[in-house]
């Protein structure tokens, strides 16, 4: 498991839900502790040397793993930049190519690799889904979450208007261009509220933290969850009732 620094430090329940869901299918899980951050904040800001220092912890962590699974489309996509980032370092270039061929975003692994579309969850709520940009556009994760959501019993999925528009997070963009980012997240929240859904679900905690932060700031009660959390909750409730 490549849990990502954000999920490790701020949202441990997301990584835990992912782990517990995968374990139900007999997947043997490991968490190599030397992993830290994929390096994206430094990479996107133009500090590639600093990005490499952080990225090496990811490349060193998964030498022995058959598959690498992460609860973030954006951090998973960052791994696809590694061959370019390490093009002048033969040792790490090989590791980068190896990791690129075996890394998956959580729903990619569940649906495309394991072949699971129905985890047996029950979740009787009105839910809307935000497709994060890097996961959906660059990594190509579009159908996988839809398949999983469509099999959840009792769940009413309401389409999010302008769903494909960026929520305005963009890493350091949210700090450097705070007012533009603020306008973007405000509009995203407006669209979420328009759906009258009680839960917003997604696949990237950075984007969800951004949208949830804005909703809380406005005093709105909409719950914001990672899909792994929703599914695991739906499975647990089902089994304990």
């Amino acid at each position, binding site marked *: 498991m490549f*849990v990502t*620094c954000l999920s*490790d*430090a*701020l*949202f*441990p329940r997301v990584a*835990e839900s992912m*782990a517990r869901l995968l*374990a139900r*299918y*007999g997947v043997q899980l490991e*968490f190599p*502790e030397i992993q*830290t*951050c994929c390096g994206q904040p*430094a*990479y*996107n*800001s*133009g*500090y*590639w040397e600093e990005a490499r*220092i*952080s990225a090496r*912890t990811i490349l060193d962590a998964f030498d022995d793993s*058959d598959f690498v699974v992460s609860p973030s489309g954006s951090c998973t996509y960052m791994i*696809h930049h590694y061959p370019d980032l390490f093009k002048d370092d033969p040792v790490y270039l090989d590791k980068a190519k190896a990791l*690129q*061929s*075996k890394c998956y975003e959580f729903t990619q692994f569940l649906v495309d*690799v*394991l*072949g*699971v579309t129905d985890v047996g969850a029950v979740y009787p709520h009105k839910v809307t889904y935000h497709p994060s*940009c*890097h996961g959906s*556009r*660059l990594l190509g994760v579009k159908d996988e979450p839809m398949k999983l959501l469509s099999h959840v019993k009792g769940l009413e999925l309401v389409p999010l208007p302008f769903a494909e*528009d*960026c929520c*305005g*997070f963009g890493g350091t*963009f*949210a700090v*450097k*261009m*705070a*007012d*533009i*980012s603020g*306008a*973007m*997240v*405000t*509009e995203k929240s407006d669209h979420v509220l328009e759906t009258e859904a009680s839960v917003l679900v997604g696949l990237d905690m950075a984007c969800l933290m951004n949208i949830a*932060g*804005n909703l*809380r*700031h406005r005093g709105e009660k909409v719950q914001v969850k990672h899909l792994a959390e929703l599914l695991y909750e739906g499975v647990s409730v089902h089994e304990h009732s």
Partner: protein
Amino acid sequence: MSTAETKAQTVKERAGYALNNEFLRNAVKFTTERLRLGKKLASEEHGNWDAWRERGRQIRLHTIAHLDYYLNEFAEQARANGAHVHFAETAEEAVAISLQIAEHKSAKSVVKSKSMVSEELHLNKALDSIGVEAVETDLGEYIIQLADETPSHIIIPAIHKNRYQIAELLSAEAGEALPPDTAIMAGFVRMKLREKFLEADIGMTGCNFAIAETGSMVLFENEGNARMVTTVPKTQITLMGMERIIPSWSDLEVMATLLPRSATGQKLTVYMSGISGPKRELDADGPDEMHIIIIDNGRSLQLGDPEFQELLNCIRCGACLNACPVYRHIGGHAYGGTYSGPIGAVLTPALNKNVAEWDDIANASSLCGACYEACPVKIPLHDMLVSLRRRKIEAGRGDKLEAMGMKGFSAVMGNAKRYRSVVSLGKWGQKLVVRGGEIRTRIGPLKGWNSYRVTPSLPKHSFRDRWPEMEQDIRRTSGTMDPVIADRLRERLRMQKSGKGENAHD
């Protein structure tokens, strides 16, 4: 330009002006939404959109890789057709050539059909300085000229104005109050421009594509004014970026499929004109003299640059602007240059030799990739924006505080033990600011973020704190693997090792 937003020096200041202008934001949202919906429907209806995008990309890649060859072929053919072909290395040279032609013809007025290259040269001001009146004849560009502004969109120059603002501008020109009714306003402009077409000495246009094999220029337009501009005046000047070339008319078929659909969602524009030289003996109309000015102005700097050469593939459809969530909120003038939106954020610094003056516009993007997805020739603008940021840092023009922050980032993230102790330290440190599990303070780096959001606090235990115990629990309760899943995993592993996994292509 005279408006307040362009006097601001930074993209942040210019964007601030736009963000506080409800009229502008609503006007931009209204039109970009209409255009991107049109594009979505047109590309879906086409059926094989991605295959054609790839064909378009390949044509552009090939042409740019052999640009010297095709430029020569184009120039030879155009000269054989009777046109005068000029090459201008800089904007100044292109302006000088244009003014010489105007002076030689003792021109008093020039009618123009929209050309972004002409905007790049600030040609109208130059013509004005020698007493030649330049009149823009595209409706949107005419409005912008009346307002003494620059285009805020590549194909919809007046996108930032609503019809009430336009009615005000046109009423001032008409000397009477015109209602904000599109048909009446367009009727007034039509009548006004008709006189201008008839009295103009020179017609001036841009060029959507130049066909190398026959030395022809192709113009896409919806208003018919480009046809007037290229047939009525006795002298015709075409301004053309040196990368506008495509090899043949059969390549145009691909471009004519991609450009209008991407730009406006139209299958084809109302007029598509191919022009091969001045009036011939049997022609009923057309100019007696024709000049083609081929302009470099920073374009050749991209040739041979592996990160930026693809910029020259751009066909100026504006789809990336319409798709961009940042452009949607700040409009085009916030980018500060002739070209705006994602393409402008890369093109402006690139054409200007990456000078420090343009460093900050690469930051005006969340790197969401909507531009790349919208681009009919698949230019990876989101990657180019990162390259621009990296080059700025490598050139030593980074922000000192940010550089220190990044050093700190790598020191912490380079080592899992250090990272873990910093997270623990954060849990103690945050006690000063956490209220009810949330952080709302607006100090330091949290100022911008917390003006629009609240920040979640670090939980008591991180995932890695909890993993040893969780791992035991998971191992105890873990299910057995279904043989079907086990087979799938083995098959996937085999694919990964042979390089045929779905991840291998990227």
